[in-house]
């Protein structure tokens, strides 16, 4: 059934476009060439910033959509910042963190009261900790990329999400983030662009946070990954 449907649909489209057999090969080559060399279209001037200006833009845009952002000097400060945040929101010191070995150096060994589980999230997990592939200054957006070390559900099931973002991974525009993904061999199963906590306007057009995904989102912007 599907094969016949496929043939019919493609034939209908081709008929509507009045294909000329002579130019058909050139057309195919053109489309193939366009797909082979993806080129950015117009990138807003706002996104074309660098250095501290870019970081400032990221902070401003992220905070405008209710993302909390904290700047940390070292990766090993992540655990203390996490503890502080959970205490502030009166949440238990318990979280699920992605298995990425980068988090081995996040300082949790110095937080004996923190109950840390590594893996993907399940329904009981109230707090999740993951690592962003990039941050996009243009709209204060986080880019998460699924991998065996960074399962996706950690960013969606818990009510509170904490994301580690190395400051060197903050880019100006979405296209730059995607360029990094291409450089790493293309998209993995799931690439999430996350801009603020989950929200809905479905009840009386009033914005309410925490519809299905996280209600709270904290970004820990790490200056140095301490790769020594």
């Amino acid at each position, binding site marked *: 059934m599907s094969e016949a449907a496929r043939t019919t649909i493609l034939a209908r489209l081709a008929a509507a476009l009045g294909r000329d057999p002579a130019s058909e090969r050139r057309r195919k080559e053109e489309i193939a060439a366009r797909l082979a060399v993806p080129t950015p279209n117009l990138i807003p001037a706002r996104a074309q910033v660098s250095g501290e200006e870019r970081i400032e833009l990221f902070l401003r845009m992220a905070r405008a959509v209710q993302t909390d952002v904290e700047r940390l000097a070292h990766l090993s400060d992540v655990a203390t910042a996490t503890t502080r945040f959970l205490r502030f929101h009166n949440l238990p010191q318990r979280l699920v963190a992605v298995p990425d070995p980068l988090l081995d150096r996040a300082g949790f060994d110095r937080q004996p009261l923190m109950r840390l589980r590594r893996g993907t999230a399940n329904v009981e997990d109230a707090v999740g900790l993951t690592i962003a592939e990039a941050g996009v200054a243009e709209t204060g957006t986080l880019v998460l990329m699924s991998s065996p070390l960074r399962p996706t559900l950690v960013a969606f099931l818990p009510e509170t999400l904490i994301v580690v973002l190395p400051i060197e991974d903050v880019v100006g525009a979405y296209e730059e983030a995607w360029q990094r993904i291409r450089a790493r061999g293309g998209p993995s199963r799931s690439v999430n*662009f996350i801009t603020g906590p989950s929200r809905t306007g479905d009840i009386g057009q009033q914005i309410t946070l925490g*519809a*299905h995904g996280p209600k709270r989102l904290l970004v820990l912007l790490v200056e140095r990954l301490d790769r020594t």
Partner: protein
Amino acid sequence: MQPTSVRFDHQARRALADAELQRALSAIRTGWQPARARAAAALPEFDALRDLARDLKDHVLAHLDLYLEAFEAAATAVGARVHWARDAAEAREIVLGLCEAYGARSVTKSKSMVAEEIGLAEALEGRGISRVETDLGEYIIQLAHEPPSHLIGPAVHFTKERIAKLFAEHHGGPELTQAEALVAEARRVLRQKYFEAEVGITGANFLVAETGSVITVTNEGNAELTQGLPRHHIVVTGIEKLVPTMEDAFTFLRILARSATGQEFSAYTTVITGPKRAEDLDGPETLDIVLVDNGRSALHAGRFREILRCIRCGACMNHCPVYLAIGGHAYGWTYVGPMGAVLTPQFVGLEQAWKLPEASTFCGRCEEVCPVRIPLPRLMRFWREEAWRRRLPPAVQRSGLRIWAFLATRPRLYRLAARLGSGILAILSRGRGRLRWLPGASGWTAARDFPAPEGGTFFSRYQRGRR
């Protein structure tokens, strides 16, 4: 869903008299409308991006066959299965067949207009498969057994109070008054459903030909849980959703949320490329993508091709004086507002839906705000012409127009008739400058006075002015 567009005038009248609906609709004027204007003003490149998006869609539509083939090849290469459906019945059968093959007893579903269009909900229930809508708005209308009334806010016609009543009825417990409490309750109830479902069904906002990826855009994060928790993910989407590359997708994403809700970017834009990979800890084991034609290739072949540029943002309805007066249900089918007035005649037949393109003042606001610059008034006019040709409007309307056409093509006669007409109306108004009642136009005068003509016809004044 059984179309009721044929009863449009009756439904519109009822909507106008519905005080609660009017209250809910008025929120759009103070909410999404100014929000879009602010977002557009905050991005200097907004209009240039709209031009680009229009051109990109036109390019894709001109080579849609090749882009579909490229998408299919790329999606298959990453382990997805691509299915093709000529019409709604075929699409339903494909999805039902997959659900049965996967042993699905319950499915979760995030918002998909194509699923609404093909009547998937009823089809699933017909086979005894339970379905839970996970978009909060869709969940609300599922509980109320109602169709969506807006592209991005399916329950926009519900006030908070009505939702509170509905939740109390279905979930038990007291009637809640705070939006936060209502959202928290829905979150709790729906959370369990995600884990029970064997299949998650989503739509797609865009399909990327280069990588075979499916892009979903939500604010709630429900699409991610809908496709991320069950063992099987099925995407139901239209063949016009193609974009060549992610770079092209970003151009559309920059205008989509701004046009829809006035957000800079929606909370969640997710790019799905194939099912779970070998070492992944989560994700569905299978990914099936159903590409639905259902009349799109017919639109593509004729004068209506430009409507296929539509990215389903809802801006046209948010700015339409007719939609804002009567809401979505009056339109009588899945697609509503100006874009619905163009699409519905194609899907349910012009005989059923010819009144929808009539219900426009052609004020042009829809075209003005459309992110991909679809000439909606022109497309509605095409349907009017077609309806006229098929003799669908009633005899009174047709002969009225015929008389007008007879006069309009005979300038001398027209001027004479205009002079006579305005003279008679001026006399009838007895110098009050307005008319409370007008023969044959009681629909107008029932709610307001008709201004009486003064100081001669337009043409006579124009001639005087020139001399």
